[in-house]
């Protein structure tokens, strides 16, 4: 590809590349144009995100191409591998453009049918369409699905739309226009002012105003400054940053360059965990392409601004998402936080002023520059502007990645977008903010969510993990699960996090094993408070949140565990009792024969009995009983 040496070159390329994405854009705009092979200009989008790839989406794309070739349509119909569509529950996804048909759970063997029936025959393959669980009717257009209806995709705008491995497609979608605008028509201070006015706040967790961070870094005097992209997505279950890097890597690169221009940095670094191989591959390709066409490197777009980006790999430590720990890790030191101040904006990587933003934050920047601060600031709540990406997981029908405007309620997310609780069970709690967040309940469902309201409710925005729990989830076990994670992931530097979290875990473990006392509950509360009060970094200060929020919201459940030895969710095995109803048992001996520890006694054709001292609560008896005589108490 030729070097892009000026804004005019960039514009020319955008015009030229427009044709590549025309059919997609028509579809997005609701053209509802026909999509038969004869008219041409048709595109098949196949999800190439990590999830769908694991379900053979690469093979699907190949089979689609084969089927098209067979029909002689290989030149008129494009097959494009895109980033994640978000609706992972229903993946692999294949979308047909411009008629906007959304096929779900596609298998490689469905490829020929899609081509033959839909592309050639003009008839949609009904069985692959999404079925609305309420109306039981098939919905062919994503726009009419509950999952997408309330979403607003800004950071994810290009994910599931363009081929992340082709810079032309990004350029066709206004890519690098924001950088061009900044370099040719704006002073660095104007860029910072625009980002400040947009109200964008850090999407990595703490919600620090992005523009302010840029301003502080820009004012730090140094011979070298750095822009760092925090791609160390550590929350279990959260994958928005990975999806952005896999689906739209150029948006991150462009934003980093804009940040570099604004703060006066010529070097950018992406700290990414080595366990994200696809994201690494796509970022590396994107960086190489950007360099090839002069959008990274010396004198970008013929201006005096030079900027380049390197990758730094992390070994997958949760604490390295904390910016000082991240910087130490990049420097080759032990990944552990240090006290702030000094903040990285004053003394960061190699002691130089460093601006650290996370992937999702960066992905918002080009759009904000293009559409203006006012446009962005009009979305969201008073203090939290724009949208937020959440990773929906747990006992919810529509697992996936969603982007919604700030101020939406948990109820809308869980029951509309998420499609409610799996299996028609009762909603119990939702954990937001990852392992350091808190569990929110029924009473929090109608709070408009933003940084402040989540914190006030005893949880946090975090990076946007959202795990839904139903009545079968024991809240003590949930707290224990998260503590297990923080115990593993603590760096061990400060006492409260190193030893305190371990002790929290041990007390929770004791409670789930039926050995807890009321005294333990009070000790749990005190210790959780002290850890929150005294830990060195954000990880330690928030790690007791799952304990504190469950203690606050589910105190009765804790008390039941210790005073009645009861786990209402039936999850704490030590608290369970398997019992045989003598009135129902016919003495078939099936349970006794299958008990691995010979805990069941009884004569043939006589009611059997479980010896509770021997029983290991494996559940083998209940499975074997044909008479429903065994129950869990």
């Amino acid at each position, binding site marked *: 590809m030729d070097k892009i040496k000026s804004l005019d070159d960039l514009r020319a390329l955008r015009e030229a590349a427009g044709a590549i994405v025309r059919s997609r854009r028509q579809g997005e705009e609701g053209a509802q144009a026909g999509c038969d092979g004869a008219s041409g200009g048709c595109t098949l989008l196949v999800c190439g995100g990590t999830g769908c790839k694991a379900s053979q989406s690469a093979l699907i794309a190949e089979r689609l191409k084969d089927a098209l070739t067979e029909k002689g349509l290989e030149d008129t119909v494009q097959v494009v591998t895109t980033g994640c569509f978000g609706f992972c529950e229903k993946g692999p996804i294949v979308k047909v453009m411009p008629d906007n048909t959304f096929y779900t759970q596609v298998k490689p063997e469905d490829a020929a049918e899609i081509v033959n029936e839909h592309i050639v025959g003009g008839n949609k393959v009904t069985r692959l369409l999404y079925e609305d669980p309420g109306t039981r009717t098939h919905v062919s257009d994503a726009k009419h699905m509950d999952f997408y209806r309330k979403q607003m995709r800004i950071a994810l705008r290009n994910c599931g739309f363009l081929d992340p491995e082709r810079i032309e497609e990004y350029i066709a979608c206004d890519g690098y226009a924001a950088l061009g605008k900044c370099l040719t028509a704006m002073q660095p201070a104007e860029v910072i002012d625009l980002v400040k006015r947009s109200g964008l706040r850090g999407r990595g967790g703490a919600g620090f105003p992005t523009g302010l961070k840029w301003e502080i870094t820009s004012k730090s005097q140094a011979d070298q400054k750095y822009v760092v992209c925090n791609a160390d997505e550590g929350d279990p279950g959260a994958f928005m940053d990975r999806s952005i890097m896999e689906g739209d890597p150029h948006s991150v690169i462009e934003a980093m360059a804009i940040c570099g221009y604004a703060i006066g940095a010529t070097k950018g670094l992406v700290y990414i965990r080595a366990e994200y191989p696809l994201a690494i591959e796509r970022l590396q390709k994107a960086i190489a392409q950007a360099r090839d066409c002069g959008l990274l490197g010396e004198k970008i777009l013929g201006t005096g601004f030079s900027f380049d980006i390197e990758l730094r790999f992390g070994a997958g430590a949760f604490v390295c998402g904390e910016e000082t720990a991240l910087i130490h890790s990049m420097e080759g030191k032990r990944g552990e936080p240090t*006290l702030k*101040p000094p903040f990285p904006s004053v003394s960061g990587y190699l002691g130089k002023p460093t601006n650290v933003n996370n992937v999702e934050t960066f992905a918002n920047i080009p759009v904000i520059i293009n559409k203006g601060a006012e446009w962005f600031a009009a979305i969201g709540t008073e203090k939290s502007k724009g949208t937020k990406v959440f990773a929906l997981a747990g006992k919810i029908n529509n697992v996936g990645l969603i982007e919604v405007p700030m101020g939406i309620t948990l109820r809308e997310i869980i029951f509309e977008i998420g499609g409610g609780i799996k299996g028609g069970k009762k909603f119990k709690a939702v954990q937001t903010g990852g392992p350091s967040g808190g569990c929110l309940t029924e009473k929090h469902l109608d709070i408009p969510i933003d940084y402040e309201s989540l914190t006030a409710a005893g949880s946090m925005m975090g990076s946007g993990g959202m795990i839904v729990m139903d009545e079968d989830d024991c809240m003590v076990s949930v707290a224990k699960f998260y503590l297990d994670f923080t115990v593993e*992931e603590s760096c061990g530097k400060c006492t409260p996090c*190193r030893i305190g979290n371990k*002790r929290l875990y041990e007390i929770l473990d004791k409670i789930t094993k039926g050995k807890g006392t009321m005294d333990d509950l009070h000790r749990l509360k005190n210790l959780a408070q002290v850890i929150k009060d005294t830990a060195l970094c954000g990880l330690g200060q928030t790690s007791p949140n799952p304990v504190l929020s469950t203690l606050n919201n589910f105190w009765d459940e804790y008390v039941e565990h210790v005073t009645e030895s009861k786990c209402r969710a039936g999850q704490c095995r030590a608290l369970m009792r398997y019992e045989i109803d003598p009135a129902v048992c016919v003495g078939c001996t099936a349970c006794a024969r299958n008990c691995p520890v010979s805990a069941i006694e009884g004569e043939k054709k006589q009611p059997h009995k479980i010896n509770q001292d021997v029983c290991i609560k494996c559940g083998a008896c209940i499975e074997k009983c044909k008479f429903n005589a065994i129950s869990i108490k």
Partner: protein
Amino acid sequence: MKLTIDNRVAEVAKGTTVLEAAKGLGIDIPTLCYYHLENLDIENKPGGCRVCVVEVEGRRNLAPACSTNCEEGMVVRTHSMRVLNARRTVVELLLSDHPADCLVCAKSGHCELQTLAQKLGVREIAYQGEQSHYRKDLSPSIVRDVDKCIMCRRCETMCNDVQTVGALSAVNRGFNAVVSPAFEMDLDKSPCTFCGQCVTACPTGALTEVDHTARVIAALNDPTKTVVVQTAPAVRVALGEEFGMAPGTVVTGKLAAALRALGFDRVFDTDFAADLTIMEEGSELLGRLSAFMNGDKSVKLPILTSCCPAWVNFFEYNYPDMLDVPSSAKSPQQMFGAVAKTYFANQIGVKREDLVVVSVMPCLAKKYECQREEFKTDGNPDVDIAISTRELANLIKQSNLDFANLPDEDFDNPLGESTGAGVIFGVTGGVIEAATRTAYELFTGKTLEKVEFEALRGMDGVRVATVDFDGTPIRIGIAHGLGHARQLLDAVRSHELDLHAIEVMACPGGCIGGGGQPYHHGNAAVLEARAKAIYREDEGKALRKSHENEYVKRLYEEFLQHPMSEKAHHLLHTHYFDHSDKIETI
């Protein structure tokens, strides 16, 4: 700026921490990981232990006083209920993962965690649970009992930042995090120089010396053995601290009396060997200088002192290209051993293997040094046992001696006589000052009237001074602390600095701050008092130049002939090895 701490107003300069401001008001906020030797520019401030947390009005969390800077109008409470509860909980957490074997711990009575628990009146540990267990690491000098590590990181700061040795760093995560050599290898496989500065700084019993007192008692009670003892200069200005005396109290006479009372057959002085070292090293320096000034450019200059065994280890690891630069003179400890097991053993008619040489050293590396193969004859070491000042104090206590009230006694002869030059070996700058006193007279042929060289004294980490040898300027470099030694040596290696002689002592402050000295718990004033005491002891000596030591002269007349003689070379000089593999394996 003004702020309020516990309802009292403090006025401080910008950059003052809350801890310092409180101290100024006489408010003693407890600390644990924090460690600061102001005069030596040594600071460990990871903010990790969270013991010093205080409440700052308007702040969501408690703030660590050690690393929170004062701000105008700040309102601080150091003992509110919230603070007291948090502080106690944090200490209980530390105790919950710490062996409760205080009764038999090497650090008992000197343990800062123990003191803290006592200060806070901890009577029970509310948060019991799993405890960490690691294997004990026994090196020739230092014992690592990692179960007692509280992750204060002081040792790491000493080893990495101050000494630039890099043997210790935090490993593992979370509950399993401890400070350890890389890959949890043993200390003696690591680049550890055994300087013992980690031991000096460790607040608990995680790092202590290898205890050799039992071996000393066994030797003293073996009727077939003649046991002699030598004691290093820095011991006499620090031992008194173990018996409640003020830092800087000189206890030379009581020390000699105590050693005699312990049952040593002869009570000698390493200071004698220090004078002997000056004769050899000074002559070597003069030899190299004269050759150089006569145009022999192949001569290696500057000459480096080689008294300090941790320093020897350090340059064997890090400067394999410069092994011919240091003086080949053995350290005083080893010179003493070599002379005792030949000259003295002969004199009293005792076979080498029946003579046990014990040394009392301020140092832990000396334990390693005396085990080096090149300091043995047919497997029999020149120095059999090296114990630290602390171990000697323990021996004295075990032996029911009322140390403070012992009448002063003298050292025995012939290896007990010393000059003031031998004494100052115990402090940074002292070896080179002693060498200068002798070299000046030998070089110029004139009598040195003023023996104090103030330019060579002080506590700056790297010092460069020029001494006038009657018209010939001699340029001298001094470094204490291995990090400073590295700076100095790198400058020499890159020809940035042009020097004639360099003195290096591995420990900050010199031997007075050695790894085997009574614990000073980060109180820099203790080191200063010891340094002053060394110079006082020197001033009180009738003779202050090594070459005036009558018994040294006699040793040459009767046995060695002259400095650098073949016999002297054989007994008093050594050679160095390339141990750079210690660094490369990491």
